[in-house]
């Protein structure tokens, strides 16, 4: 059996087409998987950070996750709102919260300059004496998200400014 040159060329061409199509779909699949993994990573972060409830409807192509605020989310938002009421430049993204766009909400609070300016103002406005170093921009994040006082002198400042109720005497 002798294959003609035409037939040979055709076979090589077909093989190349086959390999090309395979590589194209394989590449598209890998890119899709990477995008899905990235989306799930973002959801995992936002669920943890904002104490959200979540329904994972689909984990691939496309990723579908519904997010709902929990009682703990409300507590986070209350602390955030209280600070924003007193310091209006400390933005409270009411519309994004209403829409449930938690990624947008998160972008608002990650403004380091806004956080630092507000912390500085709180130390200025407070009438109590405090020891140690002043808080940095992470101080407000720690307080709003975890109700953690870092550095510890921020607790007195927050009580003094009326954000937190006074500690019970032991």
């Amino acid at each position: 059996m002798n294959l003609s040159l035409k037939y040979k060329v055709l076979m090589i061409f077909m093989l190349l087409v086959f390999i090309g199509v395979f590589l194209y779909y394989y590449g598209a699949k890998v890119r899709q998987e990477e995008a899905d993994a990235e989306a799930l990573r973002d959801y995992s972060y936002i669920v943890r950070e904002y104490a959200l409830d979540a329904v994972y409807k689909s984990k691939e192509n496309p990723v579908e996750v519904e997010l709902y605020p929990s009682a703990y989310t409300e507590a986070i938002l209350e602390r955030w709102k209280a600070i924003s009421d007193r310091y209006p430049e400390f933005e409270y993204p009411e519309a994004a919260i209403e829409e449930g766009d938690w990624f947008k909400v998160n972008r608002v609070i990650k403004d380091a300059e806004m956080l630092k300016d507000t912390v500085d103002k709180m130390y200025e406005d407070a009438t109590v004496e405090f020891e140690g170093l002043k808080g940095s921009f992470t101080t407000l994040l720690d307080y709003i998200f975890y109700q953690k006082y870092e550095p510890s002198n921020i607790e007195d400042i927050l009580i003094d400014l009326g954000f937190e109720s006074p500690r019970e005497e032991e």
Partner: protein
Amino acid sequence: MKKRITVIIVTVIALLTIVSYLISERLNAYQDIEEVIEQEFRTLRQYVEDVYAIEFLDDDRALVFYSWDFPAFYNFGVMELEKTWRGWQFVEAISNRMERKRAWLKGTYAEIGDHAILRGPTWASVDKIEIITADGREYIPELGRAEWQMWYLILEDEPFEEATFILYDSDGEVLKEEVLEFDLNWPE
């Protein structure tokens, strides 16, 4: 002759690729469910998780009760898996935040697949829970132990909005009685 050999080699390679792919797919059907669960947690990025219980609803459906997120493990999840010809597959997962803190008991209502489920954390010294609804129905939920202790109930009949929970210790003494309310419309 040479050409014919080339054709045969190419065909054989193509066939081998397809056959090995089918075999690997088939092998998936015999995989270990615990490995699948681990893999699903990695996919969902719900790291540092704790599995409290795996409930098989029938031969090809399972519910996994877990909590995740170090160090508090306050995100309580339930995941449904289904066995298909490709092995155990993810169907749906629900994660509810329930901070245990000083509470004896917490609980949330959720619907996953065709099932209504009540679940939440409870104190480690609780050995048995009795649930009594307003219309007199009684249930004994399952308890699963990992980082915390979790109670769960897969409802077979009508869900209820409120019930009294009686918590017993291992000696059968009543530790606490609490009334829990459930939002049957969650998550709407």
